[in-house]
């Protein structure tokens, strides 16, 4: 065993390193004593309110949020905590589907879960793991304040189980108004047609300054999901009988091999796979480009693309990446030709009807709670009680209005289906973009998965 100067002093160095870490933390001003969002547990923290009169207990919440979103959510919950003395124990993870499944299987679900896809709702509701909103006395209020389309989504077998918290609108095409003005382009309106969109793209390409589109579908294990937004937008707006097909895909009456569905995929190809129409260059480039990175080329100092199809959260990302950008002047959206609106939202449901749980559920459903997030920016509330004036800028107010007052509105297609079908659709998008010739086998593959999922669902209900 070697002895000597170095080895004798190294344990000391290690200890010093540990001390250095401690000092680093201390120096950087972590000036609380470790408490997170729990002022109501009786122990006084610096600057917190005095112990409130009632202490309703703790509620465990599982959602996907982290970072800035988490902070916003905590500010949403803060009034509830102050009023009831309740304690929110929050866990955020991006793998919420798997964590939720694991916890439910393990007999230890959270009190409240806020995921963004519907499939699990149906599974848990049918298995009896959830309590319906009526158990908390919430049903009447939710029915009064949310649009019918959202209510339908939260209903399983006639019972209302969930309400929606933070919504987002899709079928929006983002552009750079400054760039458009320079080039003399006009954004399309809702009553444009798909051919108008194609012609516009062709015009941009002919002008040769930028590629017409920027498209990216990479997203780790969820790669392919932006493509499904395209498909649904096209299906609902630009294909004859597409709206019925969309509904049929969800309730299982229309197969994925249906001609209307196939037409939607082919139209996607007309834009995404057209030579020179995307700044990514090719199908391979599209699948290799992260969906967030695909937003930015429109807004660089010298733009590389003109159009980008993405949901409303793109505004947040643009503002983050380009802090000097001004909503409306530097970035804005126009609706997908056809005007039908697609939405997605985080759905809230509860696994028990304890007093604390119900209290929080009631609070989260209220317009007051939802308005807090709206005012913080980056969210649209489906609660009709929230005033449009609460939105921080015209762009997002426009999006909100579109969402709550759309004539034709549907929920996000792959989120509605969930499970194996959702996985198959995502994989199908990736396959199609890289090998468009395989479309028929891709569609029948998706249909196989969908059929199997439906069969399995029937077995358990």
């Amino acid at each position, binding site marked *: *065993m*070697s002895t*000597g100067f*170095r*080895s004798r002093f*190294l*344990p000391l*160095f*290690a*200890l010093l*390193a*540990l001390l*250095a*870490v*401690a000092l*680093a*933390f*201390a120096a*950087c*001003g*972590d000036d*609380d*004593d*470790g*408490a*997170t*969002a*729990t002022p109501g547990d009786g122990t006084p923290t610096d600057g917190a309110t005095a112990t409130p009169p009632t202490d309703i207990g703790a509620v*465990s919440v*599982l959602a*996907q*949020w*982290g*970072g*800035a*979103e*988490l902070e916003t959510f905590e500010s949403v919950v803060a009034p509830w905590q102050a009023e009831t003395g309740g304690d929110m*124990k*929050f*866990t*955020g*993870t*991006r793998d919420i589907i798997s*964590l939720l499944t*694991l*916890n439910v*299987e*393990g*007999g*230890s679900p*959270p009190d409240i879960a806020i995921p963004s896809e519907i499939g699990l709702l149906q599974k848990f509701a049918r298995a009896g793991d959830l309590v319906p909103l009526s158990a908390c006395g919430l049903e009447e209020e939710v029915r009064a304040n949310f649009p019918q389309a959202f209510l339908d989504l939260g209903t399983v077998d006639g019972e209302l189980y969930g309400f929606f918290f933070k919504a987002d609108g899709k079928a929006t095409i983002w552009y750079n108004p400054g760039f458009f003005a320079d080039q003399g382009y006009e954004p399309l309106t809702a009553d444009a047609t798909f051919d108008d969109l194609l012609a516009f793209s062709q015009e941009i390409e002919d002008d040769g300054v930028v590629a017409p589109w920027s498209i990216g579908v990479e997203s*780790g294990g969820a790669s392919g999901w932006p493509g499904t937004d395209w498909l649904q937008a096209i299906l609902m707006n630009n294909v004859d009988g597409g709206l019925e097909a969309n509904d049929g895909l969800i309730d299982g009456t229309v197969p994925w091999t249906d001609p209307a569905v196939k037409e939607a995929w082919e139209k996607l190809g007309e834009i995404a796979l057209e030579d020179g129409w995307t700044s990514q260059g090719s199908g391979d480039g599209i699948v290799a480009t992260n969906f*967030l*990175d695909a937003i*930015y080329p429109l807004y*660089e100092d010298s733009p590389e693309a003109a159009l980008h199809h993405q949901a409303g959260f793109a505004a947040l*990302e643009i503002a*983050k*990446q*380009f802090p000097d950008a001004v909503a409306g002047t530097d970035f804005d959206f126009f609706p997908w030709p056809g005007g039908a609106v697609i939405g997605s939202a985080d759905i809230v449901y509860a696994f028990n009807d304890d007093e604390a749980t119900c209290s929080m559920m009631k609070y989260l459903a209220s317009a007051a709670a939802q308005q807090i997030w709206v005012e913080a920016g980056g969210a649209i509330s489906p609660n009709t009680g929230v005033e449009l004036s609460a939105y921080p800028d015209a762009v997002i107010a426009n999006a909100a209005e579109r969402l709550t007052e759309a004539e034709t509105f549907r929920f996000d297609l792959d989120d509605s289906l969930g499970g194996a079908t959702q996985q198959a659709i995502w994989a199908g998008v990736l396959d199609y973009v890289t090998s468009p010739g395989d479309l028929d086998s891709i569609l029948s593959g998706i249909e196989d998965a969908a059929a199997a999922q439906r069969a399995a669902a029937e077995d358990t209900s």
Partner: protein
Amino acid sequence: MATQPQASGRPLTVLVTSLKWLGSRGMLHLALISLMVLWSIPTIVMLISSFRDPSDIASSGWWNVFAHPFDFTIENYKNVLDARGMWQSFLNSLVITVPSTLLTILVAAFAAYAFAWMRFPFRNALFLLVVALLVVPLQMTLIPVLRLYANLTPGAELPSFDLPVLGGTIGGGKLFGKESFVGLWIAHTAYGLPFAVFLLRNFFGALPRDLFESAHLDGASDLTVFFRIVLPLSGPAIAALAIFQFLWVWQDLQVALVLLGLGDPDLHPMMLSISTLVGQFGTDYQLLTAASFISMIVPLGIFFALQRYFVQGILTGSVKG
């Protein structure tokens, strides 16, 4: 390596021998250093990225740093260190990791000694079973374990001790079951056992038989042999095991998320808190690079503290170049 060329004798011989010596020593250094450089590239990339602005990271490669040497920021590090509860999470990680590591080593050492030096029926079969358990996927074990933990009555709330000066609390949580550090210690120990037993048994078994024979002749009991002979001679193996068990528990996310999560965020280990720094879409990943370097300090410290067990040192081998 050949010994130093004799300084006597013809200069040509000296030159040739020196060149040969330099050649093969040179090759050694060349090979080693190029491998080290190649290996460090991703780490360096990460280091540089942790000092860059998020909008820079997404728009230009890290080598642009050399063109704009002053375009760096410590904002990322500040954000991580400032993050609410990060110091507490750091302490929690220590509270979770250190006992788990010690417990694993202890339990595994006892078993390894038995497998290596005691005779009993089914010895080989049992040992193979233990090693085979390496393959069991973690997530499948978490469901029954979670159910078990959820059903255990939690018992008392354990006391927590406020750290003076540095702030934060050590301890807390429940006595056992979900939301308890004890529960985590036991779970991590169990998951670490297959590898630990495998490794230690290999090293224990390599010890010379006569050591044991003479000890037993002198009337030493198993315990004495274990503590006086086996453990002291197994420094390298135990050190290696300590590093890895520490590392794996320190970096663990899954077990903590399932067995602790959904409960008190004040109990979260550092990995869990770091993962909540990242937004829903995986944005703010520049925080991850900074956070990773911060959380790397402790395992690296352990490595350097224990490195004498796997560093040959100057005394081994012949003349160094």
